[in-house]
């Protein structure tokens, strides 16, 4: 029954609408995308004008007026000073490491990058690869530090550049991961003490800027340890980085743990496995496999985070570049130096993110079967 006091809604059509033309095909030719309508044409025009204005400036700076050979004097009143990078690249890449021993940081970088490349295809995700990593990372530590097998001893204060960046990344992730597993399991535990301890630690670390954690590690840690115990500056910064990576990885792992159906644990218990066996053999392998794509973005975050050790006076890639810029013989070609450093970071991070994309697609293909 219609209620006559209700006003007539005004949206009701009384006549059918005329039929519209069929929508455009999905794939449109390029010229139509660029000039198809007024808005596109205007955007194309603005974009082309912008490029036409920028390109000559960029070309004259980077190519036409640039200096490729020579010293600092040639670089004054000129475009890009690529000669600076040609002369200073060992200092930017390896810091103040003794020049005669520079094959060692080169070997360390090659070792870590090679191990990284080797671990990319999932068929290489084996226990042997894990062993290779442990051996490689420990070996690179001896290679950098020396003092054994007739290698000259080099203190960590002389380490610098790319190897420090790579070692900090690998160590913070490698040591952070087992800690993260404990924290993630603790956070999911039914017992209150481990649960609240884990929540407290994770939220405390995630709520603080990395910079303040580095301050704590570099300023507070020496005061908090008993007299006579002193820890290397690099190791102190590493401690902060390990905690950060542990907290972030723990949150990623928690997502994976939550995604495991309860039936898996119940089935394991029905088979007579105890808590440790269930966790180690049933829950963790599945949870870790699920979170590998998001874990790669944590790796990118940690690679970028290593650049922060600059504020506690360590010589990573960025600080080594800044130190090179301080040379008074050259007119401080900052743009070229920072572009080189940014390019190195970009190459590492962008490759990891492409790899993560590929991995994700591969895994979703597997589950769709």
């Amino acid at each position, binding site marked *: 029954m219609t209620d006559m006091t209700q006003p007539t809604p005004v949206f009701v059509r009384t006549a059918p609408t005329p039929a519209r033309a069929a929508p455009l095909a999905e794939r449109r030719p390029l010229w139509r995308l660029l000039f198809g309508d007024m808005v596109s044409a205007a955007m194309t025009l603005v974009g082309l004008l912008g490029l036409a204005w920028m390109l000559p400036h960029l070309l004259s700076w980077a190519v036409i007026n640039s200096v490729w050979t020579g010293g600092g004097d040639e670089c004054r009143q000129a475009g890009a000073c690529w000669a600076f990078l040609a002369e200073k690249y060992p200092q930017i890449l390896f810091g103040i490491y003794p020049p005669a021993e520079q094959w060692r940081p080169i070997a360390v970088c090659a070792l870590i990058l090679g191990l990284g490349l080797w671990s990319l295809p999932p068929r290489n995700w084996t226990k042997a690869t894990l062993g290779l990593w442990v051996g490689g990372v420990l070996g690179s530590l001896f290679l950098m530090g020396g003092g054994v097998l007739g290698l000259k001893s080099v203190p960590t204060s002389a380490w610098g550049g790319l190897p420090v960046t790579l070692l900090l990344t690998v160590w913070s992730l490698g040591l952070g991961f087992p800690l993260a597993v404990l924290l993630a399991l603790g956070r999911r535990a039914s017992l209150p003490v481990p649960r609240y301890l884990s929540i407290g630690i994770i939220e405390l670390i995630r709520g603080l800027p990395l910079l303040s954690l580095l301050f704590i590690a570099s300023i507070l840690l020496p005061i908090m340890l008993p007299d006579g115990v002193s820890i290397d500056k690099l190791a102190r910064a590493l401690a902060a980085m390990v905690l950060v990576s542990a907290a972030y990885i723990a949150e990623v792992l928690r997502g994976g743990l939550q995604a495991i159906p309860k039936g898996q644990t119940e089935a394991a218990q029905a088979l007579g496995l105890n808590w440790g066996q269930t966790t180690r053999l049933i829950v963790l392998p599945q949870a870790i496999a699920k979170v590998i794509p998001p874990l790669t973005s944590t790796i990118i975050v940690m690679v970028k985070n290593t650049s922060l050790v600059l504020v506690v006076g360590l010589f990573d890639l960025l600080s080594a570049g800044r130190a090179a810029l301080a040379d008074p013989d050259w007119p401080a070609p900052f743009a070229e130096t920072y572009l080189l450093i940014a390019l190195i970071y*970009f190459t590492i991070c962008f490759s990891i993110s492409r790899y993560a994309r590929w991995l994700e697609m591969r895994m979703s293909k597997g589950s769709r079967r």
Partner: protein
Amino acid sequence: MTSLSTLLNDTRTRQIGLQALMLAAAIGGIGWLVLNTAGNLDERGITGGFGFLERAARFPIAESIIHYRPTDSFGWAFLVGLGNTLFLAVTAALTATLLGLGVALARRSTHPLTSGAATVYVEAMRNTPLVVQLLFWYALLTLGLPNIHMAFTPIDGVILADRGLYLPRPVIAGDKGPFVAALLLGLAATAAAWRYGRIQRLRTGIPNHYGWIAVFSTLLLVGLVWISSSLALSLDRPVIGRFNATGGMGLSPEFTAVFAGLLLYSAAFIGEIIRGGIDAVDKGQWEAGRALGLEEGKILRLIVIPQALRVIIPPMTSQYINITKNTTLALAVGYPDIALVAATTINQTGQAVEGILILMLVFLTLSVTASLFMNWYNRRIALVTR
């Protein structure tokens, strides 16, 4: 003996024992660190406590939102640093959200140049560390720009030189009291009318114009008050002086570098969050909107965005918290945020524990406040299911 072994094998006893051990280890560890700290501080002759906050700071702070002199106390200096941090975080977050929305729309565009440029921008920003970007901008602003006599002036009143960025500042001359009162009154009336109109429309189904009527009457009222109190709007343009530009609104190279760096870096992340949220809305929602005869803009505004917001809000919360945490990188270029004030204080007084505690407390409070606010907002717009 059986009773003892039953007790040891009892799950409850084991759980309680395990937890007691963990608690003891945690408390013992913290206690050990505290005892060491106390001993070490005693040895170095540093008296603990927050008494130093009342002493005069005696170090300069180059620029601040809150007024500061070197004779002010350390406590005031921390407050000044906090003011700078909050100012930087809020301005960067707001502008980055706007730019991020633009980036998201550009990346979704079918126009190849637009989406290509947005993709290059996002990938370049996301895959290089923020500190490198900040140092690059700072070097560009201090070393790459000409000195004040050869300053770069793209439009009249905007001066870009190695001393910073100078912008014109709007100045209103005259008695502003009645004008502000009229503006506030008008805004309140408009909000009320808008709400009333919406309620009426939902109740009866008939569109009405109460909101717009209120907007235009407010404009009229405010305009009349402006004329009757004979206010004059003028622009205070900066003028190039001997060493510096005077007048207008001056932004130091430090602030400009940190602000521009944070804005560009965060906008890339925010853009990806917004794009992900819009993509997460099912294609059928767009098609259903078209089938109902709605325009594309209305579909986006009324159907897609409200649903996308549910996906966007949680990662956006952590992004805003990240922006706040990232303001501490201002230290790398020397903008006096709270981290720089804390570092200077620790250097001058040796009160490392207290300085770092203040820094931690500030950031934990900010993080918790931001996530509480966002949780409240999230609950408000969350999907109501039966």
